[in-house]
């Protein structure tokens, strides 16, 4: 079946679509009440975030827009130190979208939400004219445990900079699919609950965290360096990049440091906790290649410097321009 303008009318067709696809897939008692808001228990420090997903293609090696829209928002909550609890989702469907695709997307969302331990508790659907596109907004709510204080400005001299795995996989997978290039690159799209929980539980003093999405590692570390007025030194040979992604980047003139990921995080932690933090990451199924990639070398100046494998040094700037296409 194809989505028509009637599916966005707010009438019977809308109800049918919601009942048939979203309610069935998400299967949550609060959501199923179909009230105007979800009323939920919770108290303390609340983290709230929202993100919209407009990726093409909808399905790609290693994931789909459904998995992506859950991971993106869950990871944003995690990175602020929160334990993610609830998600909402808003669908904007273009006329002509395929309901079978939509079902696959919803099932994928549900599966990913279960994996991440969050509930999808509210939603909305709109249909607009167009040619079959699917766009999803998710918002998330989480609770920040006592004693957790994560923020870019907390980076301190001596801190270790950790990366949870290889760079660029998601970006390269999406680009390859779009350009019709055949390779074995698979998106890294994943919820990072496991590794963040493990670090928190083992008492790692996490000063700053970010998931490495659009803008890439280069942009994030520049943001850290500006916020904390510190100089971050990286060792390029320690930064994991898979040979396939490296080759792909070489051909297209892309820098893995600028590329987006959907299942990788960078953490700045107290130096004594670095080894333990790497251990926590590596124990998670999405952190096998985690590594310490650099240090906060000094405070009082804002810069990110990279030691290259041949022994040179260069400044790493944030990503400029819009040469890179949208990937999420």
């Amino acid at each position, binding site marked *: 079946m194809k989505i028509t303008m009637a599916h966005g009318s707010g009438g019977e067709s809308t109800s049918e679509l919601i009942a048939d696809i979203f309610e069935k897939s998400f299967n949550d008692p609060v959501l199923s009440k179909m009230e105007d808001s979800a009323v939920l228990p919770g108290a303390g420090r609340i983290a709230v975030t929202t993100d919209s997903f407009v990726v093409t293609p909808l399905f790609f090696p290693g994931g789909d827009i459904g998995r992506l829209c859950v991971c993106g928002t869950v990871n944003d909550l995690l990175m602020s130190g929160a334990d993610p609890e609830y998600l909402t989702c808003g669908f904007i469907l273009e006329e002509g979208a395929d309901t079978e695709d939509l079902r696959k997307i919803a099932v994928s969302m549900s599966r990913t939400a279960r994996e991440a331990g969050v509930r999808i508790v509210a939603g909305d659907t709109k249909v607009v004219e167009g040619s079959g596109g699917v766009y999803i907004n998710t918002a998330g709510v989480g609770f920040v445990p006592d004693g957790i204080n994560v923020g870019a400005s907390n980076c301190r001299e001596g801190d270790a900079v950790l990366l949870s795995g290889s760079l660029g996989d998601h970006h390269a997978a999406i*680009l390859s699919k779009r*350009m019709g290039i055949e390779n074995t690159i698979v998106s890294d799209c994943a919820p990072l609950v496991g590794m963040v929980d493990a670090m928190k539980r083992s008492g790692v003093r996490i000063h700053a965290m970010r998931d490495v999405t659009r803008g890439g590692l280069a942009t994030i570390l520049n943001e850290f360096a500006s916020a904390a007025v510190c100089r971050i030194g990286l060792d390029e040979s320690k930064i994991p990049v898979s040979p396939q992604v490296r080759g792909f980047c*070489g051909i*297209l*003139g892309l*820098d893995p440091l600028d590329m987006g990921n959907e299942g990788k995080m960078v953490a700045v932690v107290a130096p004594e906790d670095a080894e333990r933090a790497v251990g926590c990451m590596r124990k998670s199924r999405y952190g096998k290649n985690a590594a310490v990639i650099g240090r906060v070398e000094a405070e009082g100046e804002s*810069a990110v*410097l*990279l*030691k*290259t*494998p*041949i*022994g*040179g*040094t*260069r*400044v790493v*700037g944030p990503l*400029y*321009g*819009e*040469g890179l*296409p949208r990937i999420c």
Partner: protein
Amino acid sequence: MTDVRPFLKNYDGPPVRLMEVCGTHTAAISKNGIARMLSPAIRLISGPGCPVCVTVTAYIDRLVELSLRPGTVVLTFGDLMRVPGGRMSLNDAKAAGGNVRMVYSPMDALRLAESDPKNTYVFAAVGFETTSAVYAALLEDAESERIGNLKLLTSLKIMPPVIDWVCRNQGGVDGFIAPGHVSVITGCKIYQPLAERYGIPFVVAGFEGGQLLDAIYALVKLRGRPRVMNLYPSAVRENGNEEARRAIRRYFEPCAAAWRGMGTIPGSGLMLRKEYSRFDAGSAGLDEDCNFSPGCLCAKVLTGAISPADCPRFGRLCTPQTPQGACMVSQEGSCYNYYISGRGSK
């Protein structure tokens, strides 16, 4: 293999100025942090090797005009989108309702044109010998698949005449890191006449950090000698790729070409042959060039007369966020690369 790094760091012989004339080399030198590994007596300067940077404003203006014409879609590489034209950039034109689409490969153009026969697709065909070979392949396919709604707006350049121009007009270059990709097509022997005319070495280099260091080392050692050396033998042969050159010759012929900052250089460009003019979107006569903004020293940067950091606008008024000229826009531009890798600062 000897480690050339100590030599390059401690070199205290006569000062050497070496020019790279390939945008990908410019980017690789920045990316590997090579400038800081060299003795102050070895200076690297960037030449006119970034195809986007050497494109004149008349060409951008023509693309803008085409994009705003109903029934015409302009296809371009991403780098060209933000280059300021006389009136506006392609990005501005797109926001104003112009039909501009970014592609990654000229071959994408075929599929787009084929699926939409009502519109004419114009590919912004900029580039040097390497890319010209790809455009020739594109035209070959367009011919055999009888795709009639695909045209090129060409601004194609060839390397040796502009190297000659730099040596003659600029001087002060003690050796060239010869372009890697271009040489795949042309072969390395095309540099021999230039080496002899100006008594300087040319070394064809690959794009890895170590390969570039080896090339710099070789150039310093060969200083003052008219030698051509191929340090990229895995990709470049003495005679290059004859088949690719034949394809280029089939569709294109040499012409005078306008270069940003250098004016028109005889025999330095390629244009579509008369018998293929049906593929031309009006490329002739696009010679006019104006400064994007008063005070922009792009022209001097492109010819290696000054280093990007010597331009008073560099890093202040002119940054990748607020580019005043093409050299700060393109990812192969020398100003962009100096800026992002901190080569401008000490």
